[in-house]
């Protein structure tokens, strides 16, 4: 599904270059559950943002579902991201002004799904995640765990092939975190490829393999 070759990202800092990622070579097969680990500043979140096509400032080669992403325009990348990738953020990043139901509706709306179909999918997702009773609430009326649950629901509502999760349990209690990881496991079992970034060994154990990053390099 994913192939990275010599992927690099750097920032210009007063004439010199500061590398965040160095010669990253990385493959992910469909259906895998991969964990990326490393100390703070290793480049984990940056790598995830590049994989999710949220960051376009890098060099190297990136193939996603046989598409050469490094050759695509911004618009083409956005289309690819929109149709195949769901993102779960550490800080949930729900839209405060929208209800739970509307937060789930937004990704479908951006994919031009007709209204009736959206309503059906959202209803189904709310039921699946057992948050029907909370559909009219706003994010500030939910607990952290509930918000992250909604964030995960939002990430999968459009049935993406790949889920990218950046510290998905970082702001949660251990029991809430366990709940989220069980959910990821279930989704993976149903065929969704998952790549997570985490500091937690417990979370890493839910995955199939671990990729370690240190100072921007993948280390064995």
């Amino acid at each position, binding site marked *: 599904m994913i192939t990275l070759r010599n992927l690099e990202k750097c920032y210009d800092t007063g004439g010199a270059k500061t590398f965040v990622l160095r010669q990253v070579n990385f493959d992910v097969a469909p259906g895998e559950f991969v964990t990326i680990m490393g100390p703070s500043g290793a480049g984990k979140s*940056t790598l995830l943002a590049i994989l999710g096509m*949220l960051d376009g400032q890098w060099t190297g080669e990136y193939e996603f579902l046989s598409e050469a992403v490094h050759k695509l325009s911004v618009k083409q990348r956005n289309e690819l991201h929109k149709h195949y990738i769901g993102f779960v953020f550490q*800080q949930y*990043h*729900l*839209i405060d*002004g929208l209800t739970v139901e509307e937060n789930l509706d*937004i990704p479908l709306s*951006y994919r031009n799904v007709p209204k009736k179909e959206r309503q059906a999918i959202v209803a189904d997702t709310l039921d699946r995640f057992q948050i029907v009773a909370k559909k009219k609430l706003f994010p500030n009326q939910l607990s952290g765990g509930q918000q992250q649950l909604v964030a995960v629901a939002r990430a999968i509502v459009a049935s993406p092939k790949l889920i990218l999760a950046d510290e998905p349990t970082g702001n949660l209690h251990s029991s809430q975190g366990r709940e989220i990881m069980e959910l990821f496991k279930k989704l993976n079992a149903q065929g969704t490829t998952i790549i997570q970034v985490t500091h937690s060994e417990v979370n890493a154990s839910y995955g199939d393999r671990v990729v370690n990053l240190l100072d921007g390099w993948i280390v064995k």
Partner: protein
Amino acid sequence: MDAILQDLRYALRGLARSPGFAIAVVATLALGIGANTTMFGVLDTLLLKPPARVRDPGRVARVYFNRNFGEGVTFTGASTSFPSYESLKDATGFSATAAWFDGQLSLGHGAEAKSIKVRGVTASYFPLLGVGPVLGRSFSAADDKLGAEPVAIVSHRYWLRSMGGESGVLQRSLPIGRHSYAIVGVAPEGFSGADLEEPDVWLPLRTATPDLNDVEALTSRNWFWVRALVRLASGRTLAAAEASATLAERRAASASDRRRDTSTSVVLGPIQEARGPRMSGDAKVALWVGAVALMVLLVACANVGNLLLSRGLRRRREMAIRAGLGAGRGRLVRQLLVESLVLAIGGGAAALLVAMWGGAAVRAFLLPGLPASATLLQTRVLVFTAAVATLTGLLAGVVPAWQASRTDVAESLRGGGRDVTATRGRLRSALVATQMTLTLVLLVGAGLFVHSLRNAQSLDYGLDLDHVLEASVDAQSAGVSRTDSPGGPSDPQSALYLRLLEAIRANPAVSSAAASVGEPYGWSHSTDLRVSGRDSLPHLSSGGPYFNAVTAGFFATTGTRIVRGRGITEADQVRGASPVAVVGQTFARLVWPGRGPIGQCLYVNGNDSTCVQVVGVAQDTRARGVTEAQTLMYYIPFGQHLVTPPINGLLIRTRGPARLADAEVQRALQRAEPNLPYVSVRSLAEAVAPQWRSWRLGATMFTAFGLLALAIAALGLYAVTAYGVTQRTQEIGVRIALGAQRPHVVRLVVTQAARATAIGAAVGLVIALGLGRAVVALLFDVKPVDGISVLGAVATLLAVSGVAAFFPARRAARIDPMEALRYE
């Protein structure tokens, strides 16, 4: 469609969650759009909209005459002689012609007399415009003949307000001038003819001429008093009709007198008078005010743009999330534009309220002659407002929307809700500077015109404007007419005024009174004058020499100082007394340079054998105009029969302020003679006020709009500075934690605001100085680079900007560093 409704729903909800922001934007737009809505209504009435109820107004034209006065001087005017109007009927190209004259006549006599506006029209006037009365009938050809039974059509407004809308109106008559006019019709509501101002009563022109003018006016080619309208015949072009009318005019002129100039040409203009060859003063003013209102709208747009930019930056995280969820840039821009359009529509609706108030203010302070209909909220005005609101929403919102959609998703999400790129908002600063630029231009304009107005009002006019009234009566309506003998007490008109003079002198509110042939800011008289020892007299741009024949006590009444010799006494007025004169200071200085004028001789009105001896020198007055400081003026006693004009008015000095005594004086004069028509009384201050109009107008307009722009700009500066403090809270907390004192923090915040203000002020100054040169002809005794105006404007701008930036700066200085470092 569903997506747009979704955007609309989210926009309304988002604005409801930020009521302060929404109110600030709507209020700002309401002021900016409201000012323009008001001025559009005025400009629409003056320039664009045809007069109400006129059928096919595009085929109706006003007639102007371009006349040659020799030495390359030509003049295009609407007034012409009645025979000249009649010659239009010989032109091909017109299906109808009509003439009209506007005047003021006395309704009734004695204590109940009132002044009414009348319009004398030919019988063809109403049919030409395609309008018939709502009650009764229009004028027939038989009505419009000299000596015919006098009939009248009352305006709808007059019928409702002054006659109670009575159903028996067609059985009534009105005593107008010297005749009783039987009412035969009521004009339709809102109909004002070809002009904007609705008269009280319409009279047949020829029948009413003895009341409106002299009968000779119907046959004399030298008497320019009527205006003409034509309706183009089907298929005829304007150019062809003009050529034909010119030919007819020249043929008629030549036929009447071979020596007469036959180079006059006819020009046809639109029915809207302001669009003709001689744009009215009101229309010019309205265009100026419209341009100024547009500047205020631009300030409002810049302000709102800044507020939207700040809001967009606060929503970077939300925009990043939406982009991360798949929203394309177009979708994000559309969402934000829907929001700014919602705000603009709210601003447009509120603008209508502003326009309702603004319309009354425009009529009260800027254009008092404007009809009320010009400031009503009509359909065209509503459509204009909707269009301006939409354009404003797009203009103010498009750049902030584009900026907000350019979010770096990864960067924004990593930084949470804070503007982590810590841009100093060059665009925001530029918008603040733009507002300051426009505001300073308006404030400097205000200073220049206020200075001009004060200069004009503080002049020594040589007249006591606040304690002198001038009174006049329509002699024709009074039934008195001039005799052919030179003016003297026996002249019926003069005799009437002298009787009124005696009566008013006895009034306890009056300290003195005098009669005169000429009146300040009214008619000036000139006659043949020779001075012994001189071949010719000096020539001034103000013309002259002018004379005024006055009764004793004239100078004491008007407050004009006698600087040498004496004034005119009762003894001078006796027939047979030695002819004397008092000359003005400029007259004395220029005619007898280096010599005393007392005892010198004047020979007046071709009488070379009678020496009119100069007995005094009076202070120069500005009785002919504010800008005419030097005039060749001399005064002679009324009653010496040296000149022919009769007395035309009284000057009355009141014991208290004239404006408080005018009603009482008017009543006293009205009662003084039986069956006297309406006596017009006004103070000299009222008489001179029109002279100040242009400066007062400029001062009011620029001050009002300048202050409005200042308020909007200050609000914008406050909002931008407050936002900057919020964004830099953590930085400020760190600085304080590291030892920064309050003054350091205040300076940090204020410096940024001051920079934008200073740049804007500097650019505004350059523009204002340039524009000052362009309007220098409109100023009075003020240089375009007027230090007082510029310093005042800059000081005002800096002071208000300082206050606007102070409050956020004070808030920044009070930041608790521990709270700030936890801020996220």
